[in-house]
């Protein structure tokens, strides 16, 4: 018998499943179309795989480098290590490496290809602003990203977008500079016209695929954030501490210049709050993180459930 207080969020899971299904369907559709058109896209797929694999494999190093994060020992940062130790023991997961980025921007991120290779990084700015309960909430959120293997999931999900982006770019440059089609050879004038037309069509389709896949991965990313909030809050048992951390940090994030973090934004790191601060002003469709209201709403729902009688 296992007793719990928090109901699983089936709606969130259903939405996530549907998004993943759409990404998969788009992928299958595009592949089928490419094969039917008889195009040789092996080169593109090869490059997309290499790029994404490097991003995935070296995600910890890339993100730490971009954020100027430095791994710290328990002697250097006893409090941070202490919190991570305890949360890992509560969640029964291996302890990730712990790093600190020496910047006043209040944020935290988790990255790494697997829970064993993961690294959790907090900025000195977030450690200065939050009290230990709030910091614990933030670390719980980041550890949930690690447990959910979000780096792997998002890398796979973004594959088609990267491939489509590559095709668009390759065709654009080959048109512009007349390097010839990467997909075929020119034998005579007639087939050259056909090839040009074909290339234009492929370029347009690639752009459309890229746009759709971009929207879908962003949607998935927002759902993963909500999931991480949820698991983190359940782990610490203090949704309100996470909520107050969110309020403190997002308010600050919107006010400060974004340059530093924007450099890190394309990499596979799971920030606590959006690294791209102007994500707040543009349509929520493009945002990697759900709106603050949505996150707070979910957390207060969990807080309510915590106070209710147990479900067996």
């Amino acid at each position: 018998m296992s007793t719990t207080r928090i109901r699983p969020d089936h709606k969130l899971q259903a939405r996530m499943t549907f998004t993943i299904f759409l990404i998969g369907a788009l992928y299958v559709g595009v592949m089928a179309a490419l094969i039917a058109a008889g195009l040789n896209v092996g080169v593109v797929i090869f490059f997309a795989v290499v790029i994404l694999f490097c991003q995935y494999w070296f995600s910890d190093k890339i993100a730490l480098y971009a954020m100027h994060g430095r791994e710290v020992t328990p002697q250097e940062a006893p409090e941070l290590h202490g919190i991570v130790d305890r949360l890992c023991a509560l969640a029964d997961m291996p302890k990730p490496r712990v790093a600190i980025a020496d910047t006043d921007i209040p944020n935290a991120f988790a990255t790494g290809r697997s829970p064993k290779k993961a690294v959790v990084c907090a900025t000195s700015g977030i450690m200065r602003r939050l009290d230990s309960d709030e910091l614990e909430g933030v670390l719980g959120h980041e550890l949930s990203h690690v447990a959910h293997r979000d780096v792997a999931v998002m890398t796979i999900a973004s594959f088609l977008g990267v491939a489509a982006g590559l095709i668009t770019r390759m065709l654009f440059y080959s048109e512009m500079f007349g390097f010839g089609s990467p997909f075929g050879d020119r034998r005579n004038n007639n087939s050259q016209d056909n090839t040009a037309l074909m290339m234009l069509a492929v370029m347009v389709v690639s752009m459309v695929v890229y746009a759709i896949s971009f929207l879908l991965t962003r949607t998935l990313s927002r759902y993963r954030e909500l999931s991480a909030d949820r698991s983190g809050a359940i782990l610490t048992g203090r949704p309100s501490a996470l909520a107050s951390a969110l309020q403190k940090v997002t308010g600050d994030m919107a006010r400060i210049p974004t340059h530093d973090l924007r450099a890190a934004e394309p990499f596979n790191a799971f920030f606590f709050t959006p690294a791209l601060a102007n994500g707040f002003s543009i349509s929520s469709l493009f945002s990697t993180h759900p709106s603050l209201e949505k996150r707070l709403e979910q957390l207060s729902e969990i807080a309510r459930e915590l106070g209710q009688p147990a479900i067996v």
Partner: protein
Amino acid sequence: MGLLDTVLGRSKAAKPNLDELFALPSAAVTLQAALDLNPTGVGSVCVKPAEGQAFAGLQDQVEALLTVDEAGGAGKYEESTDSYGFTWLTRRTTPDDIAGLVADLHAVNSTLDEAGFGGALLCTLVAFSDGVKPTVGLVYLYKRGAWYPFAPIGMDKRDNKRELEIRAQLGADLKIESDLSRWFPVWGAPGL
């Protein structure tokens, strides 16, 4: 976590394993014989307090459960909060009553678990001393169902040699946590 959990981005709270706790009395005998370490009669349960009335009410319940004994003069129970915001419920009995201590600690654990806060259980610590060196603790990790020794020297150093010595002796009696990176320090835990 299975593949489906990964895809859906959900994680189940790890369930505590309370059973291995009962292996302690036999381990205590071994420790006494091999390293002259005797229980001090102090044991504690460390919980992550959840917010909300449900947990607060439960704490009162546990308190009531444990203070019943106190009226009879058999022991003493304390509650304290450490710097990480974790609650330590400490039980003090006589050194020779290790079985009773384990039963009391188990009562606290099962009360919390049955009320749906099993996920909030962090560890149990039982203190041992040889009367000369600093007190050592045997720490039980609920989520792993395994023990590890913790021998602090002062507030920020640990005696790894002694911890490994204890591990070597207890291998047959207790399930010892094999991943050394999970032997996290509990500085300043009650009873140490």
